């Protein structure tokens, strides 16, 4: 992205975490939109076979978290890990047979979500330690003072197309535009933690549940209408939030594939370009250098 940033002033910090186990309780089942009971994997652990660029929905899964789901064992350290880690940050496996392999953060979901290449992911399991080089919080765009950037590695921003236009707006390429009605669970939460579940993407369920979002892919850059995520997450007419789809299929009602917030500001500060290639897979997982 052709835009001036304060990158030289950003602080890089080394954080640790571990691949967290999936969690369940003895009652097993949760409830879908029509009251259907389900017990489906997706949250926690090392989820295999789903990567950036793949469809977000269409899996027998709930709260699908592609790749590794990472937390820190100490509650305070965990919040630091969740708040300070940014999309695009490099994550190195620090224990187990995959030690030394590097992946990238694709989002947050009360876990830091890390995409590793398939052969690496096959060797990673619950409890494996990882090292995160966190950088990005504090990133600012001096030429776009109305836009708040968060959870975004400077290297990710550099890799994205678009940038400052002659008219002063920030051009951002998006794979999908999301109506305000889709914003589900996550409304009212801070925007440095977890993501905003999008309703209306229940592939295979009723037409009256659809908002036409069944085509989202993991890693898609999206624009959420009338959403102000500068200091939390709320509905606000005339504002816009840019996010990255970091989670997928949900069966739990009021939930769905979710964007982690990257930028937010008045809609007229942005110039959106519809671009089906606006996906992390286009920038993060080719020859991208570690340490974004």
């Amino acid at each position, binding site marked *: 992205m052709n835009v001036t940033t304060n990158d030289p002033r950003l602080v890089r910090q080394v954080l640790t975490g571990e691949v967290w186990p999936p969690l369940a309780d003895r009652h097993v089942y949760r409830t879908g939109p029509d009251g259907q009971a389900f017990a489906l994997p997706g949250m926690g652990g090392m989820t295999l076979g789903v990567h950036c660029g793949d469809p977000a929905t269409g899996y027998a899964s709930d709260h699908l978290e592609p790749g590794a789901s990472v937390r820190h064992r100490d509650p305070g350290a965990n919040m630091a890990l969740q708040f300070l880690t940014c999309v695009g940050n490099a994550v190195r496996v620090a224990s187990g047979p995959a030690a030394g392999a590097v992946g990238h953060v694709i989002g947050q979901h009360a876990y830091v979500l890390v995409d590793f290449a398939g052969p690496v992911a096959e060797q990673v399991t619950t409890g494996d330690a990882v090292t995160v080089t966190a950088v990005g919080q504090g990133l600012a765009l001096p030429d776009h003072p109305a836009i708040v950037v968060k959870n975004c590695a400077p290297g990710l921003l550099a890799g994205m197309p678009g940038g400052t236009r002659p008219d002063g707006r920030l051009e951002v390429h998006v794979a999908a535009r999301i109506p305000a009605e889709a914003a589900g669970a996550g409304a*009212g939460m801070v925007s440095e933690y977890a993501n905003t579940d999008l*309703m209306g993407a229940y592939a295979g369920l009723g037409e009256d549940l659809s908002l036409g979002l069944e085509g989202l892919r993991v890693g898609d850059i999206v624009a959420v209408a009338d959403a102000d995520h500068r*200091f939390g997450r709320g509905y*606000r*007419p005339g504002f816009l939030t840019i996010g990255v789809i970091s989670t997928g299929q949900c069966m*739990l009602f009021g939930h769905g594939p979710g964007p982690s917030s990257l930028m937010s500001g008045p809609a007229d500060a942005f110039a959106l370009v519809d671009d089906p290639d606006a996906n992390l897979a286009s920038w993060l997982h080719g020859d991208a250098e570690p340490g974004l």
Partner: protein
Amino acid sequence: MSAGNDGGMRAVAVNMLGVVEHPSLGDTPYRVDADGRPYLPVGDGGLVLGVRLGDPVSAVAGDHAAPGACLVHPEPAARHALVSYGCIGNPAEVRTGRAAGARGTVLGKRGEDGRLITAFRQEDLARLRPGDQVTVRASGQGWRHPGVPPGVVVMNAGPGLLGALPVSWPGHGPLTVGVRMILPSRLAGNGIGRPAAAWDLDLQLAAGDSDAGDGVPHGADVLLLGDLAAVSDLDARHNMGYRRDWLTVGVVVHGSSPLPGHGPGLTPILTGPGSALAAAADINGHIGLTESALGLQ
């Protein structure tokens, strides 16, 4: 079959103990509002004096301030049960402290950790203190309310509550509920995606000169505590979520919040398809849940 039965199953009431909550803050006093300004939350849970049913939701400079005493339980699982089973209109009685013997009524509930909101006379509230024990006679979940057509699900409503509210069903067609306003589902904030039997839904209504968009005017200025309000395209039977042509009606149980994604809270009581449940908005004349209807005057 009499009211309260469902397919031959008799409804059950449970006496449960709640404790008047003390507000709780972290080691910084500030929260951050939608414009990035710090503020100190006042009235977010606990025992609040001077906020009453019938007050505008934005009348006080509070954060989620509820009209009365929030009840909790020190054991998290018991706290969730207290909130899940307690229903609007259920009787509450103070068991300990200077207000022992005072009688009040469950007014609504709040989600996440869970709070049961109870209304008492102001003179009784003034004698209560956090930590006082209150027994709640919980009944309503699973109750079959008379005069409700098939397809409409009732929740969080104690026996007899619907009779005290502007709810009417002529025996055919949809059940019609008088409400202050009908809001679009995009105003559904915190609480969306959560179970309506234990959470409220915060309405993202702008206050003052702001406009919630698309002709929804000055919501926080005209909405009163105790009002009924409807949200279109919202199904609250299980978790709350978007479903086209569905309607959810609830009681406004707490006031506004500066937090983004938060606002006055709605405890759902009725949800159903548009063919079975309808709302009639009367922005000036609506009368919802009042202190006199609850016997608190």
